[in-house]
Structures are given as structure tokens and as C-alpha cells.
């Protein structure tokens, strides 16, 4: 077994008495592409929200590289090496593709550093390299607001690549994409997953099959099953609550 990069233990969050995530244990190994599936309201997005600091857990621990993320603020968690992609594309619409990528460059993120930031050769090369990877190298000076839905999703993935996190959290990266875009995104995701750990929430079973190393099924805030895709797919409990219909 490879070493763990993320260990979520006994994690619970309760919203006015409703436990969206309930005593969950969840582990991610280094360089693993781990997919989380489950019916609506299973607590998938809430789990990612807690890992990246958006939601504070009621109890439990989230350990990442010896740090306890549940005690840290969002920007500190990001700086520690956790990247998050939200369900709806969240890009900075009034900035260009280049500027969106530049802002995600993971250095000099303090006030003075930003004020005197110099777009050096290395930064430009990195922007160009990533723009080519996300199929936006001909849109560099376009405002993000003018991109299509799929392009915005790519841009956000590109921003995460720029951040170069060790753990990447992706919430439905192919939602709302055309078949063609979906295929390209699959290729992109496999490329991204090289050399880092990725947690993906996805509903598209074909897509999950094509990328996942390991699958965790959540149901009502608890873990229902975990294992390789073919194991999970044949688990009667999973078929009953999720895959059966």
C-alpha cells in the first residue's frame, strides 16, 4: 500500500441537527485518483467542502501531510497544497484567461508580493504551457466571461494546475459538457493526476470507469462501499441505493 496523503477520521458535520456527513472515515493514497459517488444528498460535496475549509466540521479530524485542516482557514489550506474545483465553474469573469492563470500562480500571494509581482519568463512559459494543456492557448487575452461553459470548466482546471496542488478536489468536472468536451476532459484529468492525488465527485459512470483507481460510495453521510470500480458496481447495496435505477 502506498503512503496516505489524506486521512479523514470520524468526520461529522451537522446542519441544524441534520448530519450531512456522519462519522466518516476516508483515506486517499499518494498519486491515487479516488472517485466519490452516491445519490443526491449523500454528503459528497460537503465532504470536499470540509477538506478545503469551506465548511467547518462539527467533529472529527482531517489530516493532510501532518497538518490538521479542520483548524485552518481556506487560504492556508490552499497554500498547504490542496486545490478545489467547484461544481459550477468559478473563474474570475472580468479577468482574461492569462490573468486568471497568473493569479493562480502559487507564489507571492501576499500584498507586497502582488504589488511588485513581475511576470517573468518562467511565469509566462508556465501560463502558455498550461493554456495549451487546457485547449485555451488561442484565447489567452479573452475575458473569462466570454468563454463557453466547457471552456470555463477547463480554465478552472488550468487554474488548479497552475496552483500545482498535491491534493486536488474536483466536483463534477464534466457536468454540462458535450460528449467531445467530456472525452478531452478525461484525457486532461488523467494527465493532471500524474504525480498528485485527486478526489473526484462524478455521476457519469462511463467517465468514472475510465479514470478511477478507487471508488467510494457515500449514502446519507456514511460510507456504503469502497473498492475498485468493478467490485463496487457488483455490490448489492450499491446497486440498490444508487446504480439500480
Amino acid at each position, binding site marked *: 500500500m502506498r503512503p496516505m496523503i489524506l486521512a479523514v477520521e470520524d468526520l461529522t458535520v451537522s446542519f441544524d441537527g441534520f448530519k450531512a456527513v456522519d462519522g466518516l472515515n476516508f483515506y486517499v493514497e499518494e498519486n491515487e485518483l479516488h472517485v466519490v459517488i452516491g445519490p443526491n444528498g449523500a454528503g459528497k460535496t460537503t465532504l470536499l467542502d470540509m477538506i478545503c475549509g469551506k465548511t467547518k466540521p462539527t467533529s472529527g479530524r482531517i489530516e493532510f501531510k501532518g497538518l490538521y485542516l479542520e483548524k485552518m482557514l481556506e487560504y492556508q489550506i490552499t497554500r498547504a497544497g490542496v486545490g478545489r474545483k467547484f461544481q459550477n465553474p468559478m473563474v474570475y469573469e472580468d479577468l482574461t484567461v492569462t490573468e486568471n492563470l*497568473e493569479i493562480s500562480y502559487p507564489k507571492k500571494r501576499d500584498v507586497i508580493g502582488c504589488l511588485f509581482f513581475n511576470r517573468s519568463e518562467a511565469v509566462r512559459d508556465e501560463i502558455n504551457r498550461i493554456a495549451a494543456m487546457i485547449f485555451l492557448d488561442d484565447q489567452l487575452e479573452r475575458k473569462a466571461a466570454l468563454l463557453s461553459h466547457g471552456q470555463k470548466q477547463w480554465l478552472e482546471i488550468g487554474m488548479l494546475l497552475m496552483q500545482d496542488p498535491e491534493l486536488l478536489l474536483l466536483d463534477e468536472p464534466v457536468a454540462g459538457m458535450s460528449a467531445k468536451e467530456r472525452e478531452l476532459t478525461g484525457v486532461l484529468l488523467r494527465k493532471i493526476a500524474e504525480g498528485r492525488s485527486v478526489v473526484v465527485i462524478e455521476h457519469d459512470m462511463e467517465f468514472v470507469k475510465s479514470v478511477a483507481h478507487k471508488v467510494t460510495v457515500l449514502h446519507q453521510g456514511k460510507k456504503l462501499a469502497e473498492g475498485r470500480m468493478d467490485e463496487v458496481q457488483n455490490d448489492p447495496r450499491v446497486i440498490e441505493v444508487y446504480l439500480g435505477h
Partner: protein
Amino acid sequence: MKDLPLTSTRGGASNAATSPTGWRGALLLDKYSVLILALLLLIAIPALTGAFRLGLFAKYLSFAFCAVGLVLTWGYGGILSLGQGIFFGLGSYMMAMYMKLEASSNDPAAAVFGGSGPPVPDFMTWNSIDKLPWWWAPFEHGWFALPAILIIPTLIAFVLGYANFRKRVGGVYFSIVTLALASIMSIVIIGQQGYTGGVNGITNLPTFMGYSVQSNTATLIMYYVTCVLLLCAVLAGRFILKSRLGKVLIAIRDREDRIRFSGYDPALFKGFIFAVAALFSAVGGAMFTLQVGFASPSVCGIVPSIEMVIYAAVGGRLSLVGAVYGTVIVGAAKSFLSENFVGFWVYFIGALFIFVPMFLPKGLAGVIDWLRIRGQVRQDKNHGGAQ
């Protein structure tokens, strides 16, 4: 050029500026806009107006510092401060304290009332305060007063802003906090007559560092100093907006919830830009007092604070240069209307506050941008090269 092409930071302009010539044109116009402003302020206006009008202009221009600061905080940072008068007032009062102590030290009567200590300003003795308060005393020295004008309001703004933004008090709630503070400030000044001069303010300030501020030459010099400082503020603002910090501000304005996940602490950035705006406002306040010869609670309460927002809105809240024009135009309209139709001014400013955001969300600068984009599109069509 070493940098990658950057599109103009002026909101509306950059949409059309996707072609290389487009952004170059936009950049050039941006560059010239400061030059045009400098020529107008430094050459055209002094040549065309007499000493009285020039003094009036200088008065408007000291408010323009606040409008320029508001472009940064409100237009780009998304922080609508309804309390810039606080910082304008702080600058104004600190300058007045220095000038008042200087006036008192030249006043034989004040020396008598001060007893063995430093001379006491006249309004204090009228209020039976016969010893200079400890927090007044250091303002006797120029080396203390001038840095204090720059540092104290900036520091207060940063601490106030950071404390609020850290607790995620933002948007309209922060506007209300600033509004309340502006109100408190004028109440405190009016209430503490013995220390602040009360509703009359601090008056009778004839000299600054030994020089008379009332002669025509002094008016001219102070006008130029104001212009140069204002142009410096505009250029500093441009530098901030062109830097990566400017992009972070836009990102915070549009998606504060997202920027945290890019690894930025928005509270720090918002605190910073709020402090910069406070610094500009304080400089404006100090120049105001220097030129009009008084400090008064009427320039640091709610009404002037809201007027400053309107100056920025009319000029265009995304345009640093526009803010200066907005201030001068609205300021001149205010003088004209309140001289000719007493009491009508408040209705006019209320109407502006409604109509400008509704019909001219980007103010005068937005109109100019629109004209330029139209011209560009027409030109592109003539060349047969539609984008």
C-alpha cells in the same frame, strides 16, 4: 516590451480590446488620459482663471483625493465606503491642529493663558481649558504633524478594515459600519467643543511653517502642490491596478468566496486598499485645510462622505482620472446650485445618486469608453476586418 499584452484595466474598454491594436490603443488612451489631466490642471486652468476661482478649484481637487481612493476601494475592491469623510476629516483636523498651535505660539494672549506650559489655542480658553491636552501637544511640531497626517488615518483604516473583513463583514454591512463611524466622528467633534472647536471647527489659521497661506502667491503654490499630489495619487492608483494586486482586487470584488481557494487572504487585500484610500483622503483633507484655512465637522460627517461616493460614481467608478473630473463637475454644480437655488442642492445630489448608477453605471468614463468602442468597431468595418 517585456510583459505579455495586458488588456486595459478600465472595465468596459477591455471587452473590445482583444486585438493587439485594440489593447495598444486602449493603453495609449489610458496613458494620455493622465497626461491630458496633468496639462489641464497644471497649465490650462491656472492660465484661464483668477486667484478666486483657482482657490475654488483647489478646494474641489482636495475632495478628488477621496474620489480617487473610492475608485480603488469601491470600483475595484468592491468595498463601498460611506465614510471617507472620516479620513478626510482626520487629515484636515491634524493639519488644523498644527496650524492652530503655530498661530497660538505667535499670539501673545495664548501664551499668557497657557501659564507655564505651551500656548493654548483661543477656542480652548473660551471653553475654560487652560492647559493644552497631551494629544494636542506633539502637533506643535511639523516633523510630527506631517507624518501623523499620513500614518494615523492609514493605520486606523487598516485596523478597522482588517478587523471587519477578517470576520467577513462586507458588502452593505461594511457600508453601514462606515456610515455610522462618519456620523460618530461628527458627533464627537461637535460634542467636544473644548478640544475640537465644536461645530465652528478650528478656524483662524493664517500660516504654515512660518509662511502666510493667504496671499495670492500662496494660493497659486498650494494649487500646484495639490495638483501634483493628486496626480501622484492617480499614478499610484494606476500602478496598483496594473499590478497583480489589481487583478486580485477584481477577483475579490467579483468572487471573494473563490479567491480564498487561490490561496489569498482577502481580508488583508481589502484592508490594504481601504488603507490606501484612507491615505489619499487624509492628504486631501490636509490640503483642504491648508487652502481654506479651517477644519470643520461639516467636511467629515455623513453628507460629505456620500458626496464623495457620488463624485466617484459620476466620473466613473472604474476610472481614476474620471473620478477627478467627476469631483470637479459635481463640485462646481454644487457651488452653482447652492448659490442660485438655495436648498435645491440636496434634491439634485439625491437624483444623481439614483440616476447615475441606473443609467450610467460606469459614469462619464463609461460614456467615453462606449464612444471609443463604437469608433473602433466602425474603423474595423471600414478595413473589412471584423473581429
